[in-house]
């Protein structure tokens, strides 16, 4: 089927680019290994949990950095959590941004932290967008009667 072939190629090209551009690393492939016929939506489910968790954390971070007296330990705790969850799903650029963010927390550098928060939000929404596109492509392939290619 022509359309399935096209969609599959799109999927492979897109997945490959996400890896090359550092949006998703090897851990994302690890998650895909855990998906099978008995758990066909595993990756999507984990990623959804990541989205919910992340948006909460971003709000918490914004609040924590708006306080009269900023508690950098608390800020760091939130970033640590974000670093953990992004690492667990393979969101490499988000994770790297968290590493930089933690350095500013350690230095108690408020400006640095505020800048990092903006960059973190940017990276997060970028990867969220990419992942949603990936899942959409998968759905389209399946709806067109094809199977999703296995990467890596």
């Amino acid at each position, binding site marked *: 089927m022509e359309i399935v072939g096209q969609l599959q190629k799109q999927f492979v090209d897109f997945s490959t680019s996400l890896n090359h551009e550092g949006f998703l690393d*090897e*851990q994302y492939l*690890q*998650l895909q*290994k*855990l998906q099978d016929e008995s*758990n066909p939506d*595993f990756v999507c*489910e*984990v990623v959804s*949990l*990541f989205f919910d*968790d992340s948006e909460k954390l971003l709000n918490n971070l914004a609040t924590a950095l708006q306080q009269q007296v900023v508690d950098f330990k608390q800020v760091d*705790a939130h970033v*640590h*959590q974000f*670093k*953990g*969850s992004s*690492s*667990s*799903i*393979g969101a490499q650029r988000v994770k790297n941004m968290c590493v930089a963010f933690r350095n500013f927390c350690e230095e108690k550098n408020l400006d640095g932290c505020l800048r990092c928060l903006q960059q973190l939000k940017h990276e997060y929404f970028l990867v969220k967008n990419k992942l949603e596109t990936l899942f959409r492509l998968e759905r389209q392939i399946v709806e067109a009667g094809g199977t999703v290619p296995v990467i890596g």
Partner: protein
Amino acid sequence: MAKNGFFSRLRRVDDLSHEVHVLAVDDSLVDRKVIERLLKITSCKVTAVDSGRRALQFLGLDETEKNSVALDGLKVDLIITDYCMPGMTGYELLKKIKGSSTFREIPVVIMSSENVLTRIDRCLEEGAEDFIVKPVKLSDVKRLKRCMFGEGLGLNKRKLEEHCGVAIPSPTPSLDDDNVSSNRSPPSPCSPRSFSSLPSSPTSSTPLDSPTRRFEASSES
């Protein structure tokens, strides 16, 4: 590095149909979901809790409960816990478990995103069986299960072969072990993953690294 409990642990899993029951502790919902799936896919039964306190409650060790009774006799074969958790850390949980006469024989594995040698040493000294650096991979869990519960003991052999991609028995790491980092030497089958990048050190060689010796020794019992 392995404590006395090692051989008695193997003896306990003498029923070939026994499913290994793992208590997983992690405050992160994302990580809990992943570790639960990793364990289930390696044929383990899993109970996942979000704190050290809840883990102790599950075991029946919680001091705040007046009449602590272990829930329903569900025997736990392994505890795998995150290190950094609010309230009770994984290290504190480890100490509580090793300090209990009832539960100190249960192997405890620590997971952490920070590969800090002093932290690893501290945990191993306190009796942790192993230390896994996050993010946890399928190969980590397979290795753990293989080392702790032996080849073919308490496992569905065919399922293990499918997942590991090797025929059983085999003391070498499975083909599925995909530590892609090129500057890391292949880990010896049962040494903690975080040690694999260090030159081989005496502390990392344990009775665990020889499955044949393990079987020979266990036949004495």
